């Protein structure tokens, strides 16, 4: 297909969008062609979402104005109509019918109080003037189209009864209900597990081919771009910095920003042949020029000669989730079952797994945030169950925890200085006043911020800066182990790359051990000495990073790896067919899940008895 022969279905022409006096999108122009996917790439704040909302004219509701530009939409031949000149009434006839949209959060995109059927029918009744009964039949067909099993029963169900992946498929069905000419997908898979993401992307691609519609695919994930896009538009600070066919962008990016973005993306398989984690220099954009920062070195910090710092033995954690009328527990969430591992000083152990695999639960149990665990956790050779209160308190100093969402984990009403000083004062490490203040300043500088930022509030920082503050807080009590619970997943790739380096530098300088909890295989590959793969609360595979990633022995690990989209359009592969959703770890009390004992297949490389 040669796009030059086609007329664009959507032409964005010198579009500017402002909120009050702030200009968010500046002079943006690009075309979208029928049957093709245009990916709009950019980090947070690049204006890509505002752009998509402007096409729908939904940005009006949040107070946007359009000082200049045109958005020409043509459903047939000719120039088409300028959407910016349409009134809301006219837009209403276009929305959902000519142009449809899918949003990022499948968990909140569906109205919780209406059934799936109701919400699907609403579009059909509105735009196609169908009768309700007729609409229901069509809705069922649409659900089947997005490969949802048992579509008829699904119509009567409510959103909360569906998993995230299922909801996103319902959203796709709803968007495609009236066979729109253009589909705008705003980060549709960002919130999903990698295996579910793979399936959703497959469905979208298939349906696009079937319906011949154009698609604007907004994402920050270069892997997804490589997987999905025909054309790419790169946005940075409200402007288009580069546009072109996908291969061109990936093979010879012209703009420094694009180059920086691509260099920051961790690539799965890039560690092939290294034994230790590797700290790579950071490509940063400085005054429009690309500069390499920091050294390139292997992270040989793990000390296996001494006893392990932390040992987890047969850890099992269960929650009661359902009770009978008489208060007896009938169902339990077997969140973690018989998990064991150890972490040596200076070592990074990664716990990887999809949602519901129990990885965060393990972290929280070690940090004593979670009660009701069986098994034992040894720290520094001492079992936690035998520790006195004071020792447990000391443990809270030596083990620190970093959460996924840096904004949520800082008290919004306290300055970051107060937050960083809190562990120091709680454990009485320094005197209140000048010594503490000086130390807080040092810590801020240590994580790449400036000391005078101590008197600011969290909301005055960007996401990456906040995570640095959290790291500074974690460092404040001079810990020996840091549990990083998805600490990188909320960050933009360029920031993520910086923070990865910060983690590695700190490990080297302070001799820290990390328990690195993540779902991102590429990041894990880059950072960890050893890796444990979790599935439904059990370890499927554990071993050296090279063993797990290069000599993958367990089918679940293989599946996980194959689902990761590669940031390389030439390497589009046919995936391992994945069906269904991740099963639940909730079981009736009398019928606990089967345990799969580990078996050593090579030195230090264990896999579970096959089950998946």
């Amino acid at each position: 297909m040669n796009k030059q022969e086609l007329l664009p279905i959507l032409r964005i022409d010198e579009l500017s969008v402002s909120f009050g006096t702030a200009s968010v999108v500046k002079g943006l122009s690009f075309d979208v062609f029928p049957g093709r996917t245009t990916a709009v790439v950019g980090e947070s704040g690049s204006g890509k979402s505002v752009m998509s909302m402007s096409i729908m004219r939904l940005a009006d509701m949040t107070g946007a104005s359009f000082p200049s530009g045109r958005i020409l939409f043509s459903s047939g031949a000719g120039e088409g109509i300028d959407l910016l000149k349409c009134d809301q009434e006219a837009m209403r006839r276009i929305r959902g019918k000519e142009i449809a949209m899918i949003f990022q959060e499948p968990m909140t995109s569906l109205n919780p109080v209406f059934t799936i059927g109701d919400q699907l029918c609403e579009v059909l009744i509105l735009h196609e003037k169908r009768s309700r009964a007729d609409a229901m039949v069509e809705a069922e067909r649409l659900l089947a189209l997005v490969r949802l099993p048992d579509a008829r029963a699904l119509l009567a169900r409510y959103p909360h009864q569906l998993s995230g992946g299922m909801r996103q498929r319902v959203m796709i069905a709803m968007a495609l209900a009236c066979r729109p000419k253009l589909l705008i997908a705003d980060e549709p898979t960002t919130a999903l597990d990698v295996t579910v993401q793979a399936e959703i992307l497959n469905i979208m691609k298939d349906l696009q081919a079937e319906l011949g519609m154009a698609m604007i695919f907004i994402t920050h994930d270069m892997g997804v771009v490589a997987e999905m896009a025909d054309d790419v538009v790169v946005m940075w600070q409200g402007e288009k910095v580069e546009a072109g066919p996908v291969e061109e962008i990936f093979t010879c990016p012209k703009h420094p920003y694009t180059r920086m973005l691509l260099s920051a993306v961790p690539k799965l398989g890039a560690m092939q042949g290294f034994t230790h984690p590797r700290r790579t220099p950071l490509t940063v954009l400085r005054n429009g020029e690309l500069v390499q920062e920091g050294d390139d070195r292997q992270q040989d910090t793990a000390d296996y000669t001494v006893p392990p710092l932390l040992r987890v033995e047969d850890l099992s954690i269960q929650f009661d989730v359902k009770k009978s009328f008489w208060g007896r527990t009938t169902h339990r969430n077997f969140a973690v079952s018989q998990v064991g591992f150890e972490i040596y000083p200076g070592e990074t152990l990664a716990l990887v797994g999809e949602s519901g695999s129990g990885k965060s639960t393990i972290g929280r149990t070690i940090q004593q945030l979670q009660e009701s665990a069986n098994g034992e956790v040894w720290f520094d050779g001492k079992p936690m169950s035998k520790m006195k209160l004071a020792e447990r308190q000391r443990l809270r100093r030596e083990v620190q925890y970093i959460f996924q969402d840096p904004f949520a984990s800082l008290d919004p009403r306290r300055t970051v200085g107060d937050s960083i000083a809190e562990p120091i004062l709680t454990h009485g490490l320094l005197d209140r006043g000048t010594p503490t203040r000086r130390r807080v300043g040092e810590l801020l500088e240590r994580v790449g911020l400036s000391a005078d930022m101590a008197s600011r509030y969290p909301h005055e920082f960007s996401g990456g800066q906040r995570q640095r503050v959290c790291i500074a807080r974690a460092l404040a009590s001079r810990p020996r182990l840091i549990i990083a619970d998805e600490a990188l997943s909320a960050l933009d790739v360029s920031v993520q790359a910086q923070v990865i380096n910060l983690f590695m530098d700190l490990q080297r300088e302070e001799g820290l051990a990390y328990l690195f909890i993540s779902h991102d295989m590429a990041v894990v590959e880059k950072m960890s000495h050893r890796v444990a793969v979790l599935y439904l609360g059990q370890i499927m595979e554990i071993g050296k990073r090279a063993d797990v990633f290069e000599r993958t022995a367990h089918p679940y690990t293989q599946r996980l790896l194959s689902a990761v989209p590669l940031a390389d359009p030439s390497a589009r592969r046919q995936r391992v067919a994945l069906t269904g959703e991740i099963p639940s770890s909730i079981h009736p009390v009398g019928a606990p899940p089967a345990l799969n004992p580990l078996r050593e297949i090579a030195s230090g490389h264990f896999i579970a008895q096959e089950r998946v």
Partner: protein
Amino acid sequence: MTGFIVKRFAQAIFVVIAVSLIVAVAIRMTGDPALMIAQGATNITQADLDRIREGLGLNQPFLVQYLDSLRGLVTWDLGNSFVGGTPVNLLVDKALPATLSLAFASMFVSIAVSIPLGIRAAVARGRGSDQLIRIFSLLGLSFPNFWLATMLVLLFSITLKWLPPSGMSGFASFIMPAVTMGVILTATNVRLVRTTMLDTLNSQYIMVARAKGLSERKVLYKHALRNCAIPLITYFGLQFGGLLGGIVVIERVFNWPGMGTLAFDAVAARDYPVLQSVIMILALLIVGINLLVDIAYGIVDPRIRTK
């Protein structure tokens, strides 16, 4: 869901029993009804008082009296008033519908005004009409209700002679009391609707509804309002309870033959059976409404219903 309702029901029964005990004890601390009844007599002896007490059944031990009153509540035989011996049922049969209908009318007025205003304010957040609605709603909170009521009477009954100044007789007589109560409730309700609406309007599914091409009216009144319903129902339920307890003043100003008037007179007259019945019936109503609110959650919110 059923388990949940059964549990709430058990709690409700506990609350009712506790309340009844408190009420029974408290009432007996208000004073001796026999003295009240004999107040006008010139020579009254201790024997006379004992005779009157015996006639009222006050010579029984407290526990017997208390259990009798509970039994009366269950069998809906509330005994006789100490004043004139009128059966309490007769009084309550008239007063309860009067109070309930006024309370419903007030809630109706308030809800009918505050939902559109609150939604309007939320949509126009920060702009002129929002400020105007907020200040206007505060005005309603700034007058004592009896004063507002008197002003309305002065205007609509005495000057214009449009509405009857008191009593319960037909639709017209509902207007002023319901509006007076309604205005005060509206002040808080507008703010509440506005806040919950703002939360809801920020939800992704509202954007989705708009992206479907639904009209703004449908987005606000179908998709958004239905989601606001849960916090609103909770609050309105609580408010209705408060309304039943706070309606005394309005009933007095408008000479409304309701439970408040009944209770007010009963306290003055130390009329235990009437006072106890009124408080207990209102308490039962409040507890019942809270129970209904819990059940209403389920109807409105499928997340609870299908659990």
